[in-house]
């Protein structure tokens, strides 16, 4: 009897293969431009965390947020501001970042979740921009120019994060944790409620389920996970600026999810990796790389229903409908 989503060994294998490849990447990087590759790969993984988190509300709950970069900003500025104030210790920063992100998600979620469709997009955008301009006005922390982190966050007094390889594996572990957590949520009844409410909120409500409470919970979890990505991003680039949380960045996160495949866990990871790879490769060809990237994204949306991951799954003759991992 199927009362929850059936296990999908196929996608499970794809995910495991993906993680193994990512874990082995630093070894391969030794034969190339190690620092550059490791830096790019770290960014891919960190943004994949944000993309998976965004997919929880975008793909599974059907809520299109154009303000999710605000959470990246909260995490990144958390690291930046605390470093500047001489409190650059992860044991302090992380709880603070989680608390602030959860609070911001809860308070704004209470408002945005009352709206639907375009209204939701616009209000998340507005809250995102609000934070963007707030960050720009923090003259003590660099204002519009941003803030350089003179050192990465300490971990219980040690400077292990200064090592790029350590940072890379910390990010990979965080991505793994994110995937495990989100997957657990989705195979639980909670995931069924989100998916059902995406299709027919009135029906779910008349079953006695508080749809808004379920969505708010997803929104807060998504926000906190995205803020963790922001914390890692600040440490990786050793620089934070308001640009991190502009609406363009929120749009890019949506693009990653759509490019890779909404409503799956593998899709957003693939999307984040491909997005940064394309950005990196195309930007070497021309500074107008978005002229190539834009049409490419349109093609994927038009012909690859379910994103690239969906396209590949279908080409491989697998049933994509109802895929949940």
């Amino acid at each position: 009897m199927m009362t929850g989503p059936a296990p999908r060994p196929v996608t499970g294998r794809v995910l495991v293969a993906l993680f193994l490849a990512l874990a082995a990447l630093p070894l391969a990087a030794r034969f190339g431009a190690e620092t550059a590759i490791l830096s790019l790969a770290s960014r891919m993984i960190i943004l994949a965390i944000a993309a998976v988190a965004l997919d929880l509300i975008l793909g599974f709950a059907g809520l299109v947020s154009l303000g999710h970069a605000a959470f990246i900003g909260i995490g990144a500025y958390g690291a930046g501001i605390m470093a500047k104030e001489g409190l650059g210790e992860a044991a302090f920063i992380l709880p603070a970042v989680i608390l602030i992100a959860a609070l911001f998600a809860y308070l704004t979620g209470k408002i945005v979740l009352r709206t639907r469709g375009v209204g939701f997009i616009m209000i998340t955008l507005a809250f995102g921009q609000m934070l963007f301009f707030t960050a720009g006005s923090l003259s003590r922390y660099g204002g519009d120019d941003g803030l350089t982190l003179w050192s990465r966050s300490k971990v219980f007094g040690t400077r292990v994060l200064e090592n790029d390889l350590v940072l890379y594996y910390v990010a990979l572990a965080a991505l793994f944790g994110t995937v495990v957590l989100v997957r657990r949520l989705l195979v639980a009844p909670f995931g069924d409620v989100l998916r059902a409410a995406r299709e027919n909120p009135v029906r779910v409500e008349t079953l006695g389920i508080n749809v808004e409470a379920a969505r708010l919970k997803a929104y807060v979890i998504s926000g906190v996970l995205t803020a963790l990505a922001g914390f890692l991003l600040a440490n990786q680039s050793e620089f934070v600026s308001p640009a991190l949380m502009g609406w363009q960045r929120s749009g890019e996160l949506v693009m990653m999810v759509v490019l890779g495949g909404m409503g799956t866990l593998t899709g957003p990871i693939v999307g984040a990796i491909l997005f940064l790879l394309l950005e990196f490769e195309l930007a070497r060809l021309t500074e107008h790389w978005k002229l190539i990237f834009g049409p490419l994204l349109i093609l994927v949306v038009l012909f690859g229903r379910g994103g690239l991951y969906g396209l590949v799954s279908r080409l491989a003759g697998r049933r994509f409908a109802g895929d949940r991992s």
Partner: protein
Amino acid sequence: MSAPVLAIEGLCKRFGGLVVADSIALGVEAGTCHAVIGPNGAGKTTLVNQISGLLAPDSGTIRFAGRDVTALGAAARARLGLARTFQISSVIGGFTAAENIALALRARSGSALSPARDAADIAARTRRLLAEVGLEGMGSRLTAALSHGERRALELAVALALDPQLLVLDEPLAGMGREESRAMIDLLTGLKARTAMLLIEHDMDAVFRLADRVSVLVSGTVIASGPPEAIRTDAAVKAAYLGQEEAS
């Protein structure tokens, strides 16, 4: 007679200049089926939406199971045991039949948002409910692939999963063939001992077979209410409604 499961008093609702509920008073006794009939546009679905909490009345009170639920939302009313079906079958198309029922069972037990620890129990109860509405062995079918009649039956099973004190049925026979209708009427007859019903239906055979009491709604007003035999012979009802039916 026992206390009414549902008691509506002075219910008013208007959309702009259109009055869709004009001081409606209505009650459903435990263990009975109360049918509401009336021509299209009489305000039947609006009434159902107000009872289930999807629409707030302008004035009036709705009491359910002895408490005033007028201010409660749809989810809270459902948790008290007020279940409904929709005029257009409302089940989750992307879910299997069993997943639809499991969703309702978990909502009822309050575990809808917590990790699944009750899978075996839910599965057993789901099988029982499927068998009860004639969908035995169809639990793993995707709802979108079910026939119209099967979706109707599933929607009934979903409502029953809420272990309702009152079942509000908005045209359960709409779009059904003769055979399917007969099966559904038999099914509903069997359920009367378990839950009170408020039935909105156009099919007069079904209404007179199932209902213990019939109210006639015309332009937002209850113009007659009484036992089926009385309604059948009521002159005002004939003029306003049944006459049209027979003529057509």
